[in-house]
């Protein structure tokens, strides 16, 4: 289970975790989030910290509040896909840069990856 560590801002770690759950589909569009207090107890952190994480996500449009019902995941699938693409881009770039350090050119790295795909199948 997810548990934030003490080495970086905890509210950012919680926001990042919820964001990645939204992108991966673990939290689907329109899904209702647990209450702040429940999340705080589950994550063993202060309710204010959870509140701050949710506010951050709401500001970026990933969550919305229904006045009396709590917080929900956005229905904006376009936004979710664009964040997913950002993640994919980061992973791909970091792969290419690591391969470059090993002496692979971009083409060689891509070639390596497609061969690996072939082995897996």
């Amino acid at each position, binding site marked *: 289970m997810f548990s934030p*560590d003490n080495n970086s801002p905890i509210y950012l770690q919680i926001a990042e975790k919820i964001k990645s759950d939204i992108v991966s589909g673990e939290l689907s569009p329109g899904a209702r989030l647990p209450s702040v207090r429940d999340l705080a107890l589950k994550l*063993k952190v202060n309710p204010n910290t959870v509140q701050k994480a949710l506010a951050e996500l709401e500001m970026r449009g990933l969550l919305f509040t229904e006045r009396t019902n709590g917080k929900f995941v956005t229905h904006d699938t376009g936004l979710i896909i664009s964040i997913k693409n950002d993640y994919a881009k980061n992973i791909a770039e970091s792969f290419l840069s690591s391969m470059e350090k090993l002496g692979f050119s971009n083409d060689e790295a891509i070639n390596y990856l497609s061969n690996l795909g072939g082995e897996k199948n």
Partner: protein
Amino acid sequence: MKAIEIKNLSKSFGKKKVLNDISLSIDRGRIVGLLGKNGMGKSTLIKIINDLLTPDSGEVLVYGKSVGVESKLRISYLPERCALDKGMTVKKVIKFYSDFYGNFDSSKAMKLLHDLDLDAEQKISKMSKGMQEKLQLALVLSREADIYILDEPLGGVDPATRDYILDTILSNFKEGATVIISTHIISDIERILDNVVFIHKGEIILTSDTDELRSSENASIDEIFRRTFRC
């Protein structure tokens, strides 16, 4: 209005200056860690806030008013040392608390004792130090207070029980209440703190939002504390 406002507070014991011109304000609804090594003035400051010691100069305001009868009702205080009559049974202590404090919730206390695995019929003198600490914490959290001040709530308990005690604090303090926790055991507790106050040799040397400090120093509060106070 702030929950607590401390203005230019000083206190000496004989020639020893224990608090030196301390000023600090604490917002409502925050969980604040008062962090410092042993003997740096944490407990003295807490006792002054609780009106158990008189400062040499300066003042403490609780909800805008000088400390006294009213602030004692607002504040639920866990002292560093066990202040209970050891000859009493747990049940008797609960009766005593509910007679003494109008805002004491006996049924909540019974529930907490059950959760913490404490026997209501047992005499306090027969309990281990850890059990006594758990009992005191249960009593303190069973008051419907605006401010909870916990002086070293984790001192005598093992790491597994520490987690349990932190959970108990998180799930039981009244919503919107302010919590002040003094400790030198930081790693276990820092994840529940909104703000930290570093106290050293009677002076406040740092106050910060916890996550902002982690971000600017790129380290845990425990690590920052160790760096700051390396012997």
